[in-house]
């Protein structure tokens, strides 16, 4: 049975294999074994209620128990440190006297997004990229949030990967960060995973950056999502999040943002008192979650919702007698 569940200590080898197979690297998850162990331990403290700030990591496991995807929720972006973004702003350089009127984009370092809830660390096995697994993995987090609503902020953000070239280098970094650090993007990215993004971001120059002074390709990359992230951005749009003027300070990938309680999926989630195996009803797709903290599980199944009972077309993979949250797979924004 495919399911999304909190990460466990013995996920480590499977997770390593998954990250190696994944072509989209994650700046929030190191491939270093020791660091991964730390991330897992921290997530477990989060699920068990020992830490309110720990990034929660979820694993998508297939019927044979193999790890096929990972995703995360950072309850408060930046945790107890500032969360860095560049905010794209506009300045008008104008002179009535000279008849000149020019719009200039300027990037300001910002901590505005600090403390918002962040969806992060999303990776799906390449073989599953165009399957329903994306939906299950991505939206399982919204069911978790709905089940633990007070643990999260009122607003949600999601940073989408920016433009990287064939060699895995960010063209934006070459024009900005590399000038100040003397480190290429891959090295800097490793440093981020090792020391934390904040520590590196703190070293970014404090003064605003004029877009017009960047290399042409870097200017083009600002606020453009990686082509491989199109599924993510489409999903975020469907959920009612909006692309903001905030970009990642490393690769200039854009950030989506929205109010949690207005998100399409959040509004469509319903509590049910029982799950009953009964194939006589309608055949619509549902994401169903049950349990809290370490016991959280999320699955995808088909069936019909009547009153506060979900009738499943097939064996019920969860505890039929316990309450659950259900979310229609098809929701209208």
């Amino acid at each position, binding site marked *: 049975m495919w399911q999304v569940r909190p990460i466990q200590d013995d996920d480590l080898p499977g997770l390593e294999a998954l990250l190696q197979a994944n072509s989209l690297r994650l700046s929030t998850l190191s491939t270093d074994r020791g660091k991964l162990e730390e991330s897992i331990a921290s997530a477990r403290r989060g699920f068990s209620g020992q830490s309110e700030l720990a990034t929660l990591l979820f694993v998508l496991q297939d019927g044979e128990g193999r790890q096929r995807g990972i995703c995360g929720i950072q309850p408060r972006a930046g945790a107890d440190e500032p969360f860095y973004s560049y905010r794209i702003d506009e300045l008008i*350089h*104008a*002179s009535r*006297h*000279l008849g*000149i009127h*020019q719009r*200039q984009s*300027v990037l300001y370092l910002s901590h505005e997004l600090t403390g918002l809830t962040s969806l992060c660390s999303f990776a799906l096995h390449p073989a599953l990229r165009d399957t329903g697994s994306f939906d299950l993995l991505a939206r399982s987090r919204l069911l978790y949030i709905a089940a633990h609503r007070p643990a999260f902020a009122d607003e949600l953000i999601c940073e989408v990967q920016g433009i990287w070239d064939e060699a895995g280098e960010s063209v934006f970094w070459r*024009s*900005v960060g590399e*000038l*100040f*650090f*003397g*480190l290429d993007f891959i090295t800097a990215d490793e*440093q981020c995973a090792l*020391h934390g993004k904040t*520590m*590196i971001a703190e*070293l*970014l*120059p*404090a*003064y*605003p*950056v*004029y877009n*017009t*002074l*960047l290399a042409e390709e870097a200017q083009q990359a600002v606020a453009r999502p990686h082509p491989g992230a199109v599924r993510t951005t489409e999903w975020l749009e469907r959920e009612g999040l909006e692309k903001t003027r905030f970009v990642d300070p490393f690769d200039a990938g854009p950030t989506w943002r929205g109010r949690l309680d207005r998100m399409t999926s959040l509004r469509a989630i319903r509590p049910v008192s029982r799950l009953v195996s009964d194939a006589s009803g309608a055949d619509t797709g549902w994401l169903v979650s049950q349990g809290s903290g370490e016991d959280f599980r999320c699955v995808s199944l088909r069936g019909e919702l009547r009153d506060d009972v979900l009738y499943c077309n097939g064996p019920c993979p969860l505890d039929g007698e316990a309450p659950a949250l259900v979310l229609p797979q098809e929701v209208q924004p």
Partner: protein
Amino acid sequence: MTLIRPITEQDLGALVEMARESGVGVTSLPDNPELMERKVRRAVASFRQELAPEEAHYIFILQDTPDGPPVGLCGIEARIGRDEVWYNYRLGEVIQASKALGLYRRTPTLFLSNDLTGATEIGSLFLREPWRGNRTGAVLSKCRFLFLAAFPDLFSERVIAEMRGNSDEQGNSPFWEGLGKRFFSMEFSDADFLTGSGDKVFIAELMPKFPIYVPMLPPAAQQVIATVHPRTEGALAMLRAEGFRANGYVDIFDAGPTLECSLGQIGGVQRSELLHVRIRHADGADNGNDRDLKPQWLVSNERFSDFRVISTAAITRHGSELELDPDQAGQLQVVAGDPVRLLQLQPEES
């Protein structure tokens, strides 16, 4: 024999002509008769003390012969940045350092500033091509030190000179291409014309206000920061010999450096000596004022509105008295017993 004197309204026509031949980069000589006239008026009023001392802009005219036409000029702006905001980039740096990452990087950074507001500026030097050489440039430049030495109370203790930055034969400035032009599409030669025409402040207002990280500029722009135009090398060397040093500020358009020296520390001010006139009778002894000889000395009177400077190849001193022939005394408009100021040119100056 060259004579330097305050500008008059009659010089306007000659200045307009000089402006036409000076070309791009000499912002003090805008090719714009109306503007030139305003400049002349202001300078004339300055010498007449019709303006407050801090509003004054003094322009000195060099003429080749006692009655000849103007062939060069130079100026002293008593206080810069008073009627128009004065902008510079200050050369600074920001440091990125982290012990944990083993990182320590210095990033040169340009900070927009008005720091030099209120300083005295020596500038506006231009000498027509046929009169260059034979130390005439040095004579014209240094006459200002005699004026500063004679009237120090009218000026700031802080004296600066802006050096022309690098631009190519076509008048393109690599610094402008890399920075200014990104903020408003305008060729350097046009922008430069505007600055000379009193629109400098309008352009400055369009320039980026936040600091500029130098490594973000194209290499060609980075390389010319704080360097001078080849034709300005001589002026740079001369001012350095007089004690001026780069003060860490550059022009916001062409990144030419600003030099600075305290008024009292300027070599020419310190070396100048106050003497009294003795008139040599016209009994023949030539004072070496042959025009083929290189001038070695500058002599100025101590008058404000009728300030005058002559150069001479040789002098005769008697203690605190300086012997002038009647011609020289006439040029300087002095009589026996009047104070005059003497300054020797440095041997290496051409």
